């Protein structure tokens, strides 16, 4: 596939090697189709002229995107989603970063168990979290369901992601750099502000961006904890019950693009941080 495959790799080791390689490529193609064909259809249908999306495609139009902009309730749902995502990203980043410091530097007694405890919500099924939150809000805390409860609910599984990302960066952090800062006259507070935070900021930013993407399209937990105001996914879900309109395709396409964009930024930011040469290894020690 790639150009510049070197000679050793293309040298057939058996007579069937060529055939096997083609079979693998075919398999790869089939997989990609399986994964992305539905999404591709959705994107294509969002530009289809027909009022009921489906094959054959009758013509290209931006009409549905136009309609979408006139749909007040949909725009409100988008607004709610953005509000929730922003709040979740900020809160998850702050809480998660602080938790990561505790985890890595708190000198806690069972660091591995604590790490698992911090990150377990990622593994717990959303339905379970959703139901338990609903019961908790309604029966124990006596909180009316609202966007606030949605934010709280989404924090349950976004904070662990931030903890994971920031903690792994902190773990690999060279403490000698902090010693150097102290040595040069920086108080502990100044060392954190001028040295530690800038150096782990890519991880913090990546955590924030991942929180945004997770929040924007979160459905299960949101569905259990939402009040009268829908977020975009719950809005789409309720609309689809009355029949799929090309409008929904258009919204979904916009969401797809936005999510991909944020995810790409997060990967680039994290990747750049990882590539930063963090200095040579120690050869001799005292």
């Amino acid at each position, binding site marked *: 596939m790639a150009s510049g495959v070197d000679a050793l790799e293309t040298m057939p080791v058996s007579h069937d090697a060529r055939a096997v390689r083609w079979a693998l490529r075919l398999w790869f193609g089939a997989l990609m189709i399986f994964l992305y064909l539905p999404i591709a259809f959705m994107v294509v249908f969002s530009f289809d002229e027909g009022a009921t999306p489906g094959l054959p495609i009758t013509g290209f139009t931006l009409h549905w995107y136009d309609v979408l902009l006139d749909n007040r309730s949909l725009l409100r749902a988008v607004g709610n989603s953005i509000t929730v995502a922003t709040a979740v990203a900020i809160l998850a980043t702050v809480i998660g970063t602080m938790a990561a410091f505790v985890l890595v530097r708190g000198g806690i007694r069972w660091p591995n168990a604590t790490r698992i405890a911090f990150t377990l919500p990622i593994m717990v099924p959303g339905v379970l979290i959703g139901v338990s939150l609903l019961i908790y809000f309604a029966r124990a805390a006596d909180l009316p369901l609202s966007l606030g409860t949605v934010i709280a609910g989404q924090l349950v599984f976004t904070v662990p992601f931030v903890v994971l990302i920031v903690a792994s960066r902190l773990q690999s952090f*060279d403490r*000698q*750099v902090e*010693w*150097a*800062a*102290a*040595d*040069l*006259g*920086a*108080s502990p507070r*100044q060392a954190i502000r*001028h*040295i530690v935070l*800038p*150096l782990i900021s890519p991880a913090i930013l990546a955590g924030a961006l991942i929180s945004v993407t997770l929040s924007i399209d979160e459905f299960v937990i949101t569905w259990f904890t939402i009040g009268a105001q829908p977020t975009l996914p719950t809005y789409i879900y309720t609309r689809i019950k009355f029949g799929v309109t090309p409008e929904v395709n258009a919204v979904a396409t916009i969401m797809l693009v936005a999510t991909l964009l944020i995810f790409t930024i997060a990967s680039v930011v994290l990747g750049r941080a990882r590539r*930063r*040469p*963090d*200095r*040579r*290894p*120690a*050869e*001799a*020690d*005292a």
Partner: protein
Amino acid sequence: MSDGSAAPAIELVDVMKRYGEAVALDGLSLQIQAGEFFCLLGPSGCGKTTTLNLIGGFVPLTSGELRIEGRRVNDLPPHKRNVNTVFQNYALFPHMTVAENVAFGLRMEGLPASDIGRRVDEYLELVDLAGFHDRYPGQLSGGQAQRVALARALAKRPAVLLLDEPLGALDLKLRKQMQVELSRIHRQVGTTFVFVTHDQEEALSMATRIAVMAGGRIRQIGSPREIYQRPVDRFVADFIGESNFLGGELRNDGPGPIFRLREGTELPVVPGFGSTRTTGPATLMVRPESVAVGPIAPTGPAPMAVIAGRAANVAFMGNHTRITVKTDAGVLVSIRFHESGKGAAEEEMVDREVHVWWDPRESTIVAAGDEPDVGEETGGG
């Protein structure tokens, strides 16, 4: 930088450091005068790095007293001490440029920006890195990173500069170059340098004074020459350079002290070179380059220490030849440096009966007690 005050730059008084049960420093007392290039030398785990970290303020003392420029600083945190450190792996700030790295300490001090700029220029110039302002640490070679670390620490104009194995991460060639550089910089700024190393050659070539450490204690403090030529004990002799050790007995019943080998040969020793006053079993040390080898020992006005033996091996080593001689008292190594224009024929001596001899002023009694493991002993190397 000294203001004429008589207080030493660094003073440790009976300092103890324990990590749980383990004793890292065992009652260390030490004075380092202003302007010295002082070296703490010793093997792994001897406490040298602990001493440095103690002075830097990175580890607390268990007991004792630490004074910097006469002021007790036992409990002062690192950012309030007037000392700066060059860390083993430089610990440059990777997200800052070279200039920002050097400026960091000055910014923390709250110096005005114009002064900071001037100081940064001055110290980058000092370490020969003028024009490297906008590079990032990731773009520097090991030697350059080392220089930045040096400039960053020196720019604070500390009372004492601490260097933790400063050349440990560099390759051999660069290390030799940096040894010369460090000496030059020390002469130029006049700041007290305290550096830690396990490399005896580094210590000998740069330091004005060396403290040889082992087991959390200081074995000997002295100039490089003193340490090399007059080691106080076998450990120091063994750790610094290569040594021949001979077991025997020190006698003092004639006109001068005599070292008597077990097989009977008597060697003259100089009074005061090592512990020559206590007679009895002892160990004599002589450096390989002080030992001469030949068919017959020269007879001169001054008595030589002479032992008969057989040349077991002659190895040509480029700039010197290494001759191993088996004697009844053990194996002795002699090193002869080649003089230009003279072709020596040492190879012919192999398997011949020879004599080894040295000027008694070159040997030292390093230990009371007859140590049985006499033979070819090589030190630090």
